[in-house]
């Protein structure tokens, strides 16, 4: 059985809480019951092995039961959340979806035929293995979204080793590799997954207080939102044991503030990409950006300053793009890293580097400095084309309190000139209301030098 090891653990867990959804707790027993219901129902509905099934849902008891039943049936699952609402028709077409299971706000399921044939040569390969599949989409903020096909059975393998049991918040999304990782990590360790109706700092803190959440997996940007919203002051967060951050580069200044605010919490960096899944990781310390990466089934190496990963659980391929693997099977992440023995420090996307008259500028270095200045809520640094130096450095800055724009820009520039080399100082600074965040709570960085590079469009999870 594909999910046999999970069902065994669910039975051991019995009446323990599996999912908190809309302030109601659902036990592992009830989850087992719903999985059995869905297995029967799938058979009645004529959903056969290898069917491409779109699962329009967020974390909920039915969504989880249905996903597990679909895995057991050997289906190819395409989870989609409201975050990608506008792209749904396109994603369904790319995935060649045959049937959709659409969950409404009350967790009722509607089954809709989609009319696509469910054909792709990678699907054929998967069906020959007799394995269930998982299709995830890259966020596509830099261009076309890529459809990433995983062999679900290989992906699940790493959860067979029992690990720690912690009450965990389902902050990351249901259709995102990091959200999927949170889900299976919890289920395989008989833990309680606390779901959210909204992902604001206050809603997150309220859920932590109410359900004594121990693990908070979030994006680096969310930690910044949490800090300057001061939501942490309004709730009792003493149950928190771990904050796990990933998805994008964490600024040292933000990490320092977070470590100071939560001295009893262990702050961990997670790393993964939609293409290879989430690696096991270990931060050197709560306030360190150096992280050990690997774990069973993963190898890492650095080529030309860029991290490459070989993973047993790597995707089978893109449904709508050529293979990004090297001939010997390594995945080029596109993330620039520094190496110190077993530890890596991730510096951001190689394609985000701004080339100013031949001098290379790392946006995160500039962001990291500006973030330390007074009254700065968020900052995002990016390049803009320029006829004299090729590119110039620009920054969008949002403020905590209102301040005269011109004075503020002068203040930031002056500080930058004192501390950074001249070519790193933003030539243009825009004071903005809010920094654009993607549906996945990542900062949206404008890019000038994509040139269709594969490395630029792969997604760190």
């Amino acid at each position, binding site marked *: 059985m594909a999910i046999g090891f999970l069902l065994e653990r669910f039975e051991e867990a019995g009446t323990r809480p599996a999912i908190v959804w809309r302030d109601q707790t659902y036990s592992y027993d009830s989850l087992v019951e719903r999985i059995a219901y869905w297995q029967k129902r799938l058979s009645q509905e004529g959903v056969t092995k290898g069917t491409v099934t779109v699962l329009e849902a967020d974390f909920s008891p039915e969504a989880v039961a249905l996903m597990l039943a679909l895995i057991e049936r050997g289906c190819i699952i395409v989870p989609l959340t409201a975050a990608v609402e506008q792209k749904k028709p396109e994603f369904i077409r790319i995935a060649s979806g045959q049937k959709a299971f659409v969950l409404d706000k009350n967790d009722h399921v509607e089954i809709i035929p989609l009319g696509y044939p469910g054909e792709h040569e990678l699907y054929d390969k998967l069906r020959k293995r007799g394995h269930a599949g998982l299709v995830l989409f890259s966020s596509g903020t830099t261009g076309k979204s890529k459809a990433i096909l995983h062999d679900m059975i290989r992906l699940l393998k790493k959860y067979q080793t029992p690990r720690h049991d912690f009450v965990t918040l389902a902050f990351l999304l249901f259709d995102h590799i990091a959200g999927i990782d949170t889900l299976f990590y919890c289920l395989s360790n008989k833990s309680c997954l606390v779901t959210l109706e909204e992902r604001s700092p206050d809603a997150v803190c309220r859920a932590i207080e109410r359900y004594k959440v121990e693990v908070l997996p979030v994006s680096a940007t969310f930690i910044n939102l949490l800090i300057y919203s001061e939501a942490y002051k309004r709730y009792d967060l003493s149950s928190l044991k771990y904050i796990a951050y990933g998805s994008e580069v964490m600024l040292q200044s933000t990490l320092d503030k977070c470590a100071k605010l939560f001295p009893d919490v262990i702050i961990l960096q997670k790393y993964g990409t939609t293409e290879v899944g989430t690696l096991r990781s270990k931060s050197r310390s709560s306030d360190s950006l150096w992280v050990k990466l690997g774990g069973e089934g993963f190898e890492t190496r650095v080529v030309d300053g860029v991290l490459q990963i070989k993973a047993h659980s790597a995707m089978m391929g893109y449904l709508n793009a050529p293979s990004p693997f090297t001939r010997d099977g390594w995945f080029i992440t596109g993330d620039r890293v520094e190496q110190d023995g077993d530890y890596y420090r991730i510096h951001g996307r190689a394609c985000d580097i701004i080339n100013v008259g031949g001098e290379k500028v790392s946006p995160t270095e500039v962001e990291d400095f500006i973030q330390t200045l007074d009254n700065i809520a968020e900052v995002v640094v990016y390049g803009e084309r320029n*006829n004299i130096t090729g590119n110039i450095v620009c920054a969008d800055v949002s403020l905590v309190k209102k301040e005269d724009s011109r004075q503020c820009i002068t203040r930031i520039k002056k500080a930058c*000139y004192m501390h950074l080399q*001249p*070519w790193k100082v933003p030539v*243009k600074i825009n004071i903005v209301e809010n920094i654009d965040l993607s549906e996945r709570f990542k900062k949206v960085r404008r890019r000038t030098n994509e040139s269709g590079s594969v490395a630029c469009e792969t997604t760190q999870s």
Partner: protein
Amino acid sequence: MIDKDKIVSALYEAIDEINEFRPQGQRLEKALDTRLFGAGGVLDSIGLVSFIVAVEQRIAEVFGTSITLADERALSQRNSPFRSIGSLADYISKLLGEVSGVPSTHGTG
């Protein structure tokens, strides 16, 4: 009519702005014959870019018109508009004149 004095004062404001960030001895003087870039110029390429962006912003504020100074056209002029404050003021006047369709009031030499 395009008022060249207004252009020059916008340029001087841009000079004030960038001088704030420049060390003593490397500051730009507010004069029409101040050499900007090239032979005898005080700006390097990064300095020139910062100055141009500051000028573009001031011009947009004063005239309500966005102009791009460092484009292909500027770079292909027989005499670089970035030689001096005076040549830059002339070039801006020409660009603004084209946008509004009116000639400038007087030359700066």
